[in-house]
């Protein structure tokens, strides 16, 4: 019975989370223009409840990596990701953030997922605002399905903890 209540409670919490994603825009390059376009009234990301950029990673649960990540920025990106509270989600906005794009050289990281896990990749150089909204809807589905990388990680950690407790009890 208790399990049923907590599962349902988590479903309700995830329903709330998916419509109130607080994003942290890690904007490094020209994709930022398209990000502004998504945030501005014409495409209006507010319709999906993610209109509120927090410029502190500690207050946000959606990291939007907008633009090229260089090798020099790697430690900063990792640190920002680590500062975000669980559960958290990550979107790689544009090809540079997803794969490095047309930069195959000494300075560009071949995708932000070299450093942190990414939930949704948006292709495009830059992506159309509609693609970003589509990605956000995909992410909302994942949030509701408890399928985000940090949700899965929490679940896995919980199972490991339970197993180790069971081993101790034996």
């Amino acid at each position, binding site marked *: 019975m208790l399990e049923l209540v907590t599962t349902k409670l988590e479903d309700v919490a995830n329903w709330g989370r998916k419509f109130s994603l607080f994003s942290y825009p890690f904007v490094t390059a020209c994709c930022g223009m398209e990000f502004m376009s998504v945030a501005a009234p014409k495409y209006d990301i507010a319709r999906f409840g993610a209109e509120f950029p927090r410029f502190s990673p500690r207050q946000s649960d959606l990291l939007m990596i907008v633009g090229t990540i260089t090798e*020099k920025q790697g*430690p900063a990106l990792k640190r920002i990701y680590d500062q975000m509270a669980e559960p958290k989600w990550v979107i790689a906005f544009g090809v540079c953030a997803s794969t490095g794009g047309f930069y195959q050289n000494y300075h560009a990281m071949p995708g932000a997922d070299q450093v942190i896990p990414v939930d949704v990749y948006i292709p495009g150089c830059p992506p159309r605002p509609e693609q970003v909204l589509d990605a956000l809807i995909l992410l909302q589905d994942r949030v509701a399905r408890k399928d985000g990388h940090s949700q899965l990680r929490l679940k*896995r950690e919980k199972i490991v903890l339970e197993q180790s407790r069971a081993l101790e009890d034996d």
Partner: protein
Amino acid sequence: MSQKVLDALKAKFGDAIIATESQHGDEVALVKREKLKDIATWLRDDAAMAFDMPVFCTCIDLLDWRPVKAPGTASSARPAWDPTGDGKSPRFEVCWQLRSVPHRHRIRLKVALHENDVKVPSLALLWLGFDWQERETFDMYGIDFQGHPDQRRIYLYDEFIGHPLRKDYPKEKRQPLVRRSDLVGDH
């Protein structure tokens, strides 16, 4: 456009000007490394020159470079590029572009360097604008600017080994600072 600057340089410094060229309205003077600082100081301070504005400083890596074949000449007629006259082609050309706002003329100073001797006098104390430009040239090409007040990397991180805009730097060689620890495993 600034032919008179080249003429004045040749009249004043003679053999210190190894070669000059004019192309697309840009005048270039290849100068001797030992005389670079004197020439630059004169260009800045002389009233008829008055080069008060540093435009850029950069470097050209001439690895495997050959002059473009002139039309109608045989392919074997390509001369080796030997401005210093010691029988060896230089590996690098460091260049400084200058502009005079009052006289509206421009000049580019070049110094040719061999691969194993990349020291060159710094002009950062003559024009402060060359400070970061020379740091960038050092960062990307490894040119050693003698007398630069603060010569260290400007774009790349200190852990980076080598100079990436040199033509012999491997094109896709990355030097990562951080990678995911869970890239191999259960993710």
